């Protein structure tokens, strides 16, 4: 089922949770609503589910106006961050709930319900846990039960509100991959909410980045990461180094480096910043670029992170660079070593007043 949002707005008292949201979710898509807390992503999900009514705008399911449909008629499966399993029911009864509450003429016979629940529990690899109570399961197992329960009523849409937010990173990683596989097998339309950019990139076909109740950018994961259209998105998807842009003789500079190539916008006068991801910093011999000193070296599995104090920058705000383990093994950068920095890529944005950090000016 496809979902269309048209001009959705919702206020909570004085606070505008979402403002004028337009979004297309095609049938079978797996979409991530990504944003910091308070950006309106959960509100938007709840509006799609029918748990909140928008103040303005329309929700269309397969082209039909579903704005005023009650939740039970929308055929959506909803999964909460904290599972919301019914504690007084066994795992089996939890999964069977949606089938047992159907009106008598639609309700499948008991044997059929049993068979269906069993196959769902097999699907989530919990066929052994049918007579357990939720409290006897781990977080990851609980969330799988919640998913099986949502799938039991054959929803057209699966909505997940920070589904893995309460789990530890190992389990989270496993469940993400599992959700992706499940989605590819069953072909329902899914929308999930997360504040974890890595999760969004790993799982979703399309990422919708939200900020202050509005869509900042919408696109496929690689595109959003590589070509962010705003400093907010750039910052939100992964680590960034933020440096002020200076104009000298009509050319844009960061420190001593000329970055005019990608900074045409900066020539219009106002303050600008350059955002550079840690892996976009090239480290070479001292004479090869912006002189800097290595402040710290941290080996993190396959990558190595270096804190660098570039000349003219404040020492308490070092630049962060990432190099591969192989590169590190070959060059053996050590603390105190003098190096030269160059940027492989950068992106220039107008500096918004709220976020401009007055980093030390260059001499």
């Amino acid at each position, binding site marked *: 089922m496809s979902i269309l949002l048209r001009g959705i707005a919702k206020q909570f008292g004085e606070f505008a949770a979402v403002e004028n949201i337009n979004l297309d979710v095609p049938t079978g898509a797996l979409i991530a609503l990504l944003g910091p807390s308070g950006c309106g992503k959960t509100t938007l999900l709840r509006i799609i589910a029918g748990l909140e009514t928008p103040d303005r705008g329309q929700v269309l399911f397969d082209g039909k106006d579903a704005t005023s449909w009650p939740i039970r008629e929308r055929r959506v499966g*909803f999964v909460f961050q904290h599972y919301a399993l019914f504690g007084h029911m066994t795992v089996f009864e939890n999964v069977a709930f949606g089938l047992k509450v159907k009106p008598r003429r639609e309700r499948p016979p008991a044997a059929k319900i049993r068979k269906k629940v069993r196959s769902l529990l097999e699907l989530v690899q919990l066929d052994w846990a049918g007579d357990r109570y939720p409290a006897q399961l781990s977080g990851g197992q609980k969330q799988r039960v919640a998913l099986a329960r949502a799938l039991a009523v054959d929803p057209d849409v699966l909505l997940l509100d920070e589904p893995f937010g309460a789990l530890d990173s190992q389990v989270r990683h496993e469940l993400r991959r599992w959700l992706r596989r499940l989605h590819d097998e069953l072909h329902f339309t899914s929308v999930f909410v997360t504040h974890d950019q890595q999760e969004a990139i790993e799982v979703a076909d399309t990422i919708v980045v939200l900020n202050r109740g509005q869509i900042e950018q919408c696109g496929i994961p690689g595109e959003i990461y590589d070509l962010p259209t705003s400093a907010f998105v750039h910052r939100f998807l992964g680590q960034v180094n933020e440096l002020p842009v200076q104009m000298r003789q009509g050319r844009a500079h960061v420190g001593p480096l000329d970055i005019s190539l990608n900074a045409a916008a900066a020539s219009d006068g106002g303050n600008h910043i350059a955002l550079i991801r840690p892996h976009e910093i090239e480290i070479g011999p001292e004479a090869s670029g912006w002189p800097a000193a290595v402040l710290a070296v941290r080996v993190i599995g396959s990558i190595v992170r270096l804190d660098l104090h570039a000349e003219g920058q404040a020492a308490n705000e070092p630049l962060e660079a990432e190099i591969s383990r192989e590169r590190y093994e070959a060059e053996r950068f050590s603390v105190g070593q003098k190096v030269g920095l160059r940027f492989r890529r950068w992106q220039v944005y107008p500096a918004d007043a709220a976020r401009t950090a007055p980093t030390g000016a260059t001499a």
Partner: protein
Amino acid sequence: MQSRVLAASYEMSDAEVSRAHGPRPRRRPQWGRLLLIAAALSFLGVFLALPLLAVFVQALAMGVGAYVAAIFDPMAWAAVKLTLRIAATAVPLNLVFGVAAAWAIAKFDFRGKSTLISLIDLPFAVSPVIAGLIFILIFGTHGWFGGTLRAHHIRVVFAVPGIVLATTFVTFPFIARELIPVMQAQGKDDEETALSLGASGWQTFWRVTLPNIRWGLLYGVLLCNARAMGEFGAVSVVSGHIRGLTNTMPLHVEILYNEYNYVGAFAVASLLALLALLTLAGKSLLEWRQPELRHSARQPPDRTRRERT
């Protein structure tokens, strides 16, 4: 000096070490513990066990025969029946009102919510005597609706309906107050999940909400019931003390006591205490009969985990 002590202790066997150091640090906390336990027990004894015991001792002071006779006195028996009838009316009423109010307050946002919360607390804040007087003022002969009621030959004040009204008013907060924090702590996720799975509002209430709140509800009902049977002040004002007709057990106890009929007074009082003990026993029995319900709905039994590999 210190290093020598250390060196010496290294040479001691484990048993010696424990003998040398073991008991000393434990002794003082043990005294403290005993003292605290003794204080707690004597408090319980003086304030709970002793009065309860005194009631039964006084009631049986003239022998079992006098006790039985006092209880089966027609007037006493009428008071017992009236009290049970009142409780059987007021408690279900407050069960419905209390659950509805707690449901509304905990699960929905609406204007006037804080006013409603304060209103629920009103019966706790107001003296029971005033609660009784309110009903006299409204339904009494010279009250607002006095004329209308008389015209239709309906008696409220100095009759059973008045007692029911006063008791319901006084016991109103018990169930709602017990449920609101429980329901608020549980949030709306369970209900919203049930709705998304296609359950109707009614099904959601019976299958999800009610099981989640059952222990809070049971506790609220017990408290409400105990108070409904024991209420004195408000009932005293509206009942009119008509023996055999509008005398509840607490009122009857007072009358007998004022008549220097100590055996009678304490016999009825012991019955009242017995009813209270019975409700408590009933609750324990329920918990004992359904061990899987003993834990709150959020934490079902923690049997040993056996993970399948």
